[in-house]
Structure formats: structure tokens, C-alpha cells
């Protein structure tokens, strides 16, 4: 596997890291969970963190853990849609337009790459799911997501985070234009 140090990836995709931690912090504040310490970005492992108190409700834990996934994914999708059209569909050659599209695409990819909850995020969430005491729908939804994200974290070794980001960036164009933007030669 092509190995690149985590700190270098984080450095190259820092907008996504900052946005991920901002979302954690924001959803902690929304859920009324106390936050004790925050690092929005640093060169190290982890690249960012939010130290917070325990969430008392499963809903709050879900929001805090999954919030960054939703925020980063939506931002990735919206920012990249405007970038993918001029780069891959229209193939603009004017430097100014191309540069702004590439800038948008870089920010979008960085958002997508840091969308998934980290293993620590999921460990917290799992602990709360286990201690929730209930075995209703939220419990099973929680278990499903924690399983899904556990697999995603293992697959990060195989660049799943980058694959996910690319999938998100091409999802809307693919839905609207078919396979056209990805393989233009198929439609010509």
C-alpha cells in the first residue's frame, strides 16, 4: 500500500481537519455537553481533538459523533459540484477559472477525507450505545453506524477516506450526467 505519514496528509488537507473539529465543538455546544479542551489543528497525531464531557443521551452522542460526517460530506458535495463541472466536464482552459475550480476541489476533497468519525469518536459513541440501557431503534441504528465506521476506519489504511472523498465529489455529477464526467470518451 502507498503509505504517507498521517501528519502530512492532515497538513495537505487541513481545511477538512479544522471543519471536522469545528463541527464536533459546535454539536457539543448544541447538545449542552461541556467541552474542556479543543485543538482545531496541529501537526501531530491526532491532527485535532475535542475533549468533552460524557453525553447523557444517545441522541447527543450520535449528533457529536456523526455531526462532522454530515457537515463535511455536505460541504464536500456542494463545493466539488461547482469544481467538477469546469474541470472534468467543460474542461476549461482559462487559468483563472481553472485555478478557482481547483481550489474549490482541493477544499472539497479535504472536507471529504476528514468526514468519517475517527476511531476515538466511535469508541465514545460505542461506549454510550452499550451503556444506553435501551434496546430500541436508536440502539440498533447506533450499533449499525458504529459497525460501519469501524470498518471504514480499518479501510483507511487502504485510502478509504480518499476514495470516499472522490466518490462524494463525483456523486452529484454522476447522478445528473451519468458516467459522463468520469469517462468522457464513453459518451463521445
Amino acid at each position: 500500500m502507498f503509505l504517507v505519514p498521517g501528519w502530512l496528509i492532515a497538513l495537505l488537507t487541513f481545511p477538512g481537519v479544522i471543519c471536522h473539529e469545528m463541527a464536533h465543538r459546535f454539536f457539543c455546544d448544541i447538545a449542552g455537553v461541556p467541552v474542556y479542551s479543543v485543538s482545531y489543528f496541529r501537526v501531530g497525531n491526532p491532527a485535532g481533538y475535542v475533549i468533552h464531557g460524557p453525553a447523557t443521551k444517545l441522541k447527543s452522542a450520535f449528533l457529536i459523533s456523526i455531526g462532522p460526517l454530515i457537515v463535511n460530506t455536505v460541504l464536500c458535495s456542494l463545493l466539488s459540484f461547482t469544481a467538477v463541472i469546469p474541470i472534468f466536464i467543460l474542461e476549461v482552459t482559462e487559468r483563472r477559472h481553472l485555478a478557482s475550480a481547483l481550489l474549490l476541489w482541493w477544499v472539497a476533497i479535504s472536507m471529504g477525507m476528514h468526514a468519517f468519525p475517527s476511531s476515538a469518536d466511535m469508541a465514545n459513541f460505542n461506549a454510550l450505545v452499550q451503556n444506553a440501557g435501551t434496546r430500541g431503534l436508536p440502539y440498533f441504528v447506533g450499533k449499525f453506524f458504529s459497525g460501519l465506521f469501524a470498518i471504514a476506519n480499518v479501510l483507511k489504511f487502504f485510502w478509504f477516506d480518499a476514495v470516499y472523498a472522490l466518490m462524494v465529489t463525483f456523486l452529484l455529477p454522476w447522478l445528473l450526467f451519468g458516467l459522463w464526467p468520469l469517462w468522457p470518451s464513453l459518451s463521445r
Partner: protein
Amino acid sequence: MDDVEQSGAETPVALTPHRYPAWIWLIGLGIVVMLAVALNKLPPYYRAATLVQSAETLAEDGHDNSAVEFYMKALEITPSSKRVRLGLAISYFRSPDEEDHKKGLGVLQGLTLDKDEWQKLTAVMPAAYQRLFTDVKQ
């Protein structure tokens, strides 16, 4: 990137909710501005992309005159689009009218083409025009 739960004998002081450092506000503002710019640019790009898609379908079906109209509309939105200019030139070169061939040549001015694109173009471009192009070293 972690969110870490804190538990222990000593309860640390919690940060004031919804109070973020100034640089975080700036980054947040930057993201909002970027999103606004992206969403503002999206409608014309989307329109150009759908026009190109329609133009290519028309050209494939042999309706080059109609395809040219769609390509021209797309070209007004994104004058530097290689895909639009190449498609438009091909439709012009398919026309029996020599004036259209000249227009096709004009559309290609300043464009660098890869091998596949050049092959598509030479399939319809008059041989006399092909001599006007030069090889570019990559």
C-alpha cells in the same frame, strides 16, 4: 482527529459554549464565502454542461446545425471550454459549407489537443487545414 470524553476525579473547567477563537470565525467565514461563490457559479456552469450534453447528442445523431446552436450558447457561458470548442469545430467541419470550415478553424485557435482529440478532429477536418497545426512537445 478525535473527540475524547473526559472522566476523572478532578473536573476540569469547561469552555464557554459558542465562544470560538477569532481565527475559527475567520475560517468559518472563509468556508461560507467559498460556498456562496461555488453556489453562485453553479447555475451557469450547470447550464453550459447541459447545453454541451444536448449538443453532443444532436451531433451524434447527425443534426450538426442544431448542435452548433447549442455549442454556441455554451461557448457564450464558458469561452475557454475545450470540450465546447472541439465539439463545435467538429460540427463545423462536418458542414459542406467552406465558410463553416473557416469558423471551425477559428474556434480551435490557441487550443492544445491530445492525440485522441486530434484523431477525432482530423477525421472531419479538411486536409489543407491540418497542415496549419504544429506539434507541441509535452
